[in-house]
């Protein structure tokens, strides 16, 4: 029977991983024939959107390349919600049109008058 590999996420990237690239660290140096990869999120309080996004991609990539399921455990509500949001976004999204007025000003004094008290 093939073994499972458990990765303690907190010990690899801390309790509040912020950076996108940190997600790849979780999948590094996982060798051998394993039945599943378990990412244990105990102690992880919050993940940034960038980290969640890259984790989602890296997880799908790992599963496809190794044909090994990746399972998440001990995931708190905030982390679950962030993971759900990026999963939805990765289904596809188009940028929203932003039509903010562009106001041309010719001096800092003019700008100061426009922003006074804002």
């Amino acid at each position: 029977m093939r073994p499972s590999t458990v990765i303690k996420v907190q010990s690899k990237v801390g309790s509040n991983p912020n950076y996108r690239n940190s997600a790849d660290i979780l999948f590094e140096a996982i060798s051998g024939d394993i039945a599943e990869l378990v990412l244990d999120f105990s102690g992880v309080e919050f993940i940034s959107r960038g980290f969640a996004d890259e984790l989602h991609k890296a997880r799908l990539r790992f599963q496809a390349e190794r044909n090994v399921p990746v399972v998440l455990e001990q995931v708190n509500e905030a982390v679950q919600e962030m993971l759900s949001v990026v999963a939805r976004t990765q289904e596809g999204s188009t940028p929203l049109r932003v039509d903010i007025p562009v106001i041309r000003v010719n001096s800092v004094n003019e700008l100061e008058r426009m922003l006074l008290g804002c």
Partner: protein
Amino acid sequence: MQRITFPERTYQDFTDPLVKLIDLARIMGIPRGPVQLDLSRCRFVSPLLICGAAALVKSQQENGIASEAPADCHDPNLRSYLELVRFPHGYSQSDATYDTKRLLATLRGRTYVPLVTFPVTATPDSGREDLIQAVEDLMVHQCGLNGQMLMAVKYLISELAGNISYHAGHGTGFLFAQYYPNGHYLDIAIADTGQGLRGSYIASDRHADPGSDAEALRMALEGRSTKDQAVSRGYGIRTSRRMLVEGLGGSFFYWSGDAMLLNNATRDNIYELKDGTRYAGCYLALRVPTIAQPSFNLMGFVE
């Protein structure tokens, strides 16, 4: 070396220190030679101005111009403050040692964090993460944040400071903040000395030159990523702005090149300053209310 007198004080409305910073950039851009910022007459200076000034000086230094900003001022309280936050050089990850940890512990009862600087690099850097994390934790402690507000502040810092690493291309990142307990808000400044928004789009192979800094800023607000994985990336500025302004009732300011966005309850405009004043990298100022409406839900804004 030209001496530039720093404003004696800034006021607590959000835009006062920003206008003073823009004016400082204008003056520093005139001689195109080294300048010395004279803080001797200062009495109260907003962190939004301090962070921006430190980044302006650093940007000139990185371009071979020996500008400086000695923390010499007559007011003993301000001098002590500037020395403690280590203006203008800041604490870098090379300082993430015993001294920094001791300083952070000392500041737990104060209302400000130290000025933090970090090199721009897209590669994972645990030292940088640890330092930003420690400062973020200090802010959360000082403001007594929990629940949705805690997550909102962490989201804003992680997205906007993270953007620096991915987009600036080169240079130095800055992070600075101060909590105003009487006003129930937190002012956060994030800056870099890199290539700016338009430069980031030009450097990417996914977009043509936006044509202007204002257009580059508009594209960033639409969530158009400069990076090669278009889908699901590029939302940092868009969601941060919406969460802060629409969700929390705060203020958001973003300046790159000659374009600046001001978005709060009364303004949602991009200003294009055509007198030659520019900020080469990116500069952000956030005013974050520390008490959220009961209905505020972070995840309602995250895309």
